[in-house]
């Protein structure tokens, strides 16, 4: 058992200049064989390993990560958490995650800095108003807190928004989910890693998957840069690189991987105490605890694994930000980066068994996977452990692209694809 993090451990360690904290997770070499290997040491993969050990009593679990944990999209997103999706299936999925977020710091004994500061989605034209009102009603029928705000109420909730009706895309209203907010993305990966490691999960970093071994329609192992690992169950949580892994197993997926960019400003004093998103002009902004404005831009429309993205996308987003928040006109941007997101045609994820026995997929989260991290891990663990989906992720199977039973969430996905 790891020592508990608390105010007392903090004081105790202060006396030794914080030099004697125990390691949060080990750095093991891979064993020859595991019952389950999770590919991808981001939030989703680590959460999956944690719930497999915790709730399903599985032993001999490994997480293989080609870089360092949380170094992919977990460390590249804009940390927004909400559950105001339109369809029943999505509402069930994302609100399941939100409910876990609410007690996750206590459960993991790790401060993930979950902050329910509210998320506001703006409407800029009549169709936006209709869509957002419809979505508010749908949310409330599903027991998700949502309110529709008119222009004055938007201004009251976030006074720095320019609500002048003479701008190119005036603010006509918006929705607010008060339980929504942000969390510290690195802490989520680290918290899950520490808790999973504590239950005997091997987290193997700098270990890239090179091949999937199959015997007819059953997986038998995984070839990595640290050697061959024998296993009968592989769970892939590799985000933008899922197609690369699936191709090794001979599967073609309904995914396209595209760069999604974000940027942060220099740190300033508190100026915006909520998250504001706008679909139509494609700008969303919040402020980190360090004081940086965290700004999300859009996806490029071409397939790329380069983690860069195009300049014109950032320019478009900043134009929109400046029109909505003239107060930011002299802010200087500090960093810009891209993450590679795997986008499904219906903007909903896949948490599913596949036609290959023992090969499971958790992918297609596209531009909005961070918010689902705990729920995704919980449901993926259930799917792997029981070889059957949980009722909350049954609709998110891969066969929906054959049956036509899609879960179209382009409207709620917030980042236009």
């Amino acid at each position: 058992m790891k020592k508990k993090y608390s105010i007392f451990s903090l004081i105790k360690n202060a006396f030794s200049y914080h030099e004697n904290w125990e390691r949060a997770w080990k750095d093991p070499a891979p064993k020859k064989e595991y019952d389950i290997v999770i590919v991808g040491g981001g939030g989703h993969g680590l959460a999956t390993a944690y719930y497999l050990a915790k709730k399903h009593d599985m032993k001999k679990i490994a997480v293989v990560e080609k870089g360092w944990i949380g170094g992919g999209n977990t460390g590249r997103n804009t940390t927004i958490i909400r559950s105001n999706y339109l369809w029943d299936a999505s509402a069930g999925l994302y609100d399941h995650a939100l409910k876990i977020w609410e007690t996750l710091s206590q459960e993991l004994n790790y401060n993930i800095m979950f902050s329910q500061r509210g998320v506001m989605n703006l409407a800029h034209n009549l169709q936006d108003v209709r869509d957002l009102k419809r979505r508010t009603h749908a949310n409330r029928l599903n027991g998700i807190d949502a309110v529709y705000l008119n222009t004055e109420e938007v201004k009251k909730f976030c006074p720095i928004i320019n609500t002048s009706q003479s701008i190119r895309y005036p603010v006509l209203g918006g929705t607010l989910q008060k339980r929504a907010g942000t969390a510290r993305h690195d802490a989520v990966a680290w918290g899950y890693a520490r808790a999973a490691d504590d239950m005997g999960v091997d987290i193997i970093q700098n270990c890239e998957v090179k091949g999937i071994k199959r015997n007819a329609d059953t997986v038998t192992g995984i070839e990595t840069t640290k050697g061959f690992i024998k296993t009968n169950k592989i769970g892939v949580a590799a985000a933008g690189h899922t197609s690369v892994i699936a191709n090794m197993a001979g599967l073609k997926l309904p995914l396209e991987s595209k760069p999604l960019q974000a940027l942060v400003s220099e740190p300033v004093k508190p100026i915006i105490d909520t998250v504001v998103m706008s679909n139509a002009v494609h700008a969303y902004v919040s402020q980190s605890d360090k004081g940086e404005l965290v700004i999300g831009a859009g996806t490029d429309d071409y397939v790329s694994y380069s983690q860069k993205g195009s300049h014109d996308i950032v320019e478009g987003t900043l134009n929109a930000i400046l029109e909505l928040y003239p107060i930011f006109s002299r802010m200087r941007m500090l960093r810009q980066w891209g993450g590679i997101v795997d986008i499904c045609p219906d903007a909903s994820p896949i948490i599913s068994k596949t036609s290959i026995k023992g090969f499971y997929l958790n992918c297609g989260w596209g531009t909005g996977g961070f918010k689902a991290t705990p729920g995704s891990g919980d449901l993926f663990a259930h799917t792997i452990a029981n070889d059957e989906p949980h009722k909350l992720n049954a609709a998110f199977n891969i066969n929906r692209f054959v049956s036509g039973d899609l879960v179209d969430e382009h409207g709620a996905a917030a980042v236009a694809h």
Partner: protein
Amino acid sequence: MFIISCPFCGEREQSEFKAGGEAHIIRPKQPTELSDDEWAEYLFMRKNIKGVQFERWNHTHGCRKWFNVVRDTSNDEIKAVYKMGEKPPTV
């Protein structure tokens, strides 16, 4: 961001173009004859290659013509450009 050499207009910034996805996916001649699996394969399944990919682009803010590009998706380097109907180059 990168430069694309349109076969009709010459070198232009990528932002002038619209990506059209994977190239050489042949539209089924008899869609009504397809099984659900075949239809899903045509409509949704993509190779999504990390590496050299053959794809379609449209010069939306120029000549508005479609053409093909061979591009390395791991670093966005363009290997070849060829017109619709032409045989794909070997790269």
